[in-house]
C-alpha cells in the first residue's frame, strides 16, 4: 500500500504543488487547510506522515502537533514542519524553511517514512 501523507497548509499554491509532487513520487495525499481540518482528516485515516505549516488560521500547526501528541493513535505519526516563519521551532521537530528545494524536501520525506 502506498503511504498516505497529510499536507496541512493554508497557502493553496504551496499545497497544490506539494500534492502534485508527492502524488507523482507515488505517495497518496490528503489535504487540510488548517489544524482543525487536519484533525478531521486524521480521524478518517491515520497517515504515515504529516507535513505541517505553522502559521495557519483557525488552528496553528503548533497546536495541531500538540493535539496529535496528546492522542495515542496519532502521537507516533512522524511530523515534518514546513514554515516560512522565523520562529524558532521546537528543536525536537524536523523543520524545513520555505522555500525549500525539491531534493531536500523529498529526502526529508523519505527519511521520515523510514
Amino acid at each position, binding site marked *: 500500500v502506498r503511504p498516505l501523507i497529510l499536507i496541512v497548509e493554508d497557502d493553496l499554491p*504551496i499545497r497544490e*504543488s506539494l500534492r502534485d509532487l508527492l502524488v507523482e513520487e507515488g505517495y497518496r495525499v490528503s489535504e487540510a487547510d488548517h489544524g482543525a481540518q487536519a484533525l478531521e482528516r486524521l480521524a478518517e485515516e491515520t497517515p504515515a506522515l504529516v507535513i505541517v505549516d505553522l502559521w495557519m488560521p483557525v488552528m496553528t500547526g503548533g497546536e495541531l502537533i500538540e493535539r496529535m501528541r496528546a492522542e495515542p493513535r496519532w502521537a507516533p505519526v512522524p511530523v515534518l514542519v514546513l514554515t*516560512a*516563519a*522565523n520562529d*524558532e521551532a521546537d528543536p525536537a521537530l524536523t523543520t524545513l524553511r*520555505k*522555500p525549500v*528545494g*525539491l531534493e531536500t524536501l523529498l529526502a526529508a520525506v523519505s527519511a521520515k517514512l523510514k
Partner: protein
Amino acid sequence: MERLSRVARGRAIGQDVRALFASLAPALDADALSSGVSLRQLPFAGAKNGFCDFSAAPLQLDGNVYGGVCLLRDVTEQVETRRRIAETESRFRNMADASPVLLWMSGLDGLCTFFNRTWLEFTGRSLEQEIGIGWSEGVHFQDFQSCMDGYLAAFARRERFAIEYRLRRHDGEYRWIFDQGVPRYAPDGSFAGYIGSCVDITDRRRLAEDLQQQVRGRDEFISIAAHELRTPLMPMRIAVDLLLQKGADAELRARVEMLDQAVSRQTETIEALLDLSRINAGLTANDVEPFDLDEVVGQVVARFDRRSAPVVMAASPRSPGSWDRGKVERVVSNLVTNGVKYGDGRPVEVAVEDHGARVHLVVRDQGIGIAPADQARIFERFERAVSERNFGGLGLGLWISRQIVAAHGGSIFVDSQPGAGSTFTVELPL
C-alpha cells in the same frame, strides 16, 4: 600667664591685671573684678590672637575686698575646632541641599533623621512631616510593602540596597523613584544607620517602555514580512525544480534555468534583507549556551543543497564551548554559502580545529579566490570582490559574520590566492 600676656612673670608683679591683659580690659571693669565674674570665649590679643575663658573672684576679709584671684584659660583650640566642625557641617548641608538627587539619612533605629532640601521640595512637605516614618506616607500604596520590605531586609543585614517605588510629588503626581541606600558608620566603625540617594526615573522608565514596544512592533513586522516574502517562493521553487528534473528541449531548458536563477537570487535577497533588519536589532551574542561546535557545524553542513558543489565536513575533534548557537549557525551558513557560490563547483571543505583556548572554524573552497587588494574590503557592508552581474546577493554575508564573530570576542580572516581558492578562518574563544 606669660604666654597670654607676653609679660614676664617677674615684671608682672605689682601691675594692674587690666594692664597685663589689655585686650580683655573692656570686659573687665573694677566692679566685675571686685564682685566676681565668669566670662567665656573672650577674644584676646596676646602672643597670639585667640579666645580664653576668664573668671575672677574677689578675696575678702571681714566684708572688705583686699584682692582677687583671676583664672584665665586658653580655649582657642576648642573654639577653633568647634568652628571648623560647624563649617564642615554647613558645607555638607549646603552640598546636600544643592544636590539634584533626593537625599535622606536614617539612624540606628531605621527612622529617618534627615532629608535634604531637594527631597523636601520634591514632596512639598516639611522636614518635621518627613522625619521618622513620615516620608512613607508619600509612597504609593501599591509599592509601600515592597519598598518597606526592601529597606528593612537590607537594614537588618546592613547591606546596600536599591529599590524602586512611586513617591508622591508636591503636585500630587506619583513619580518613579530609584532609591539607593548605603549603610553608614561612625568614626569608631560602629554602624550608624543609612544614607540614601534617590533619583526620579519616571521619564527613563517611560522611554524604556516605549522603546520595548517599538522593538516588539518592529520584530513583529519583520517576522510577518519574512513569512509573506518567503511563502510565494515555495511553489516557484518546486515548479522550477520539477521542470529542471523532467528535462526538456534546449530552448525551454534555458528559460527554466533562468527562472531557477531568478528564484535563487530572490531567495538570497530576501534572506539578506531579513538579516539586515535583524542586524539593526543588534548583532550581539545574546543567547549564549554550551554546545559542541563541531556538532552544530556538522548539522549546518548537512543541510546544504549539494547540487552546485559538494560540501564536505572534515573529521573534527569534539569542540565544546559557549556561544550563541543561532548566530554561530549563521556564520557557518554564510561562509559555506560563499564557498559554494565562488567555489567554481569544486568541493567546499569545512573543519573545526582545537587550538587550546580558542577553536577554529575553517571553510576552504577551491574557487576563483580573492585578489589581495580586495581581501580587507570583503568584510565591509555591501561589498563584494566580484561584479554582482555574475554573483547575486547584497554583499552582507561576510560583514554579518564578522559582526557576529566580534560579538563573541573572536576574529575572522581570509587566506586566498586568485584562482586557487579561499580559506576563511574563524577564531572563537571557548
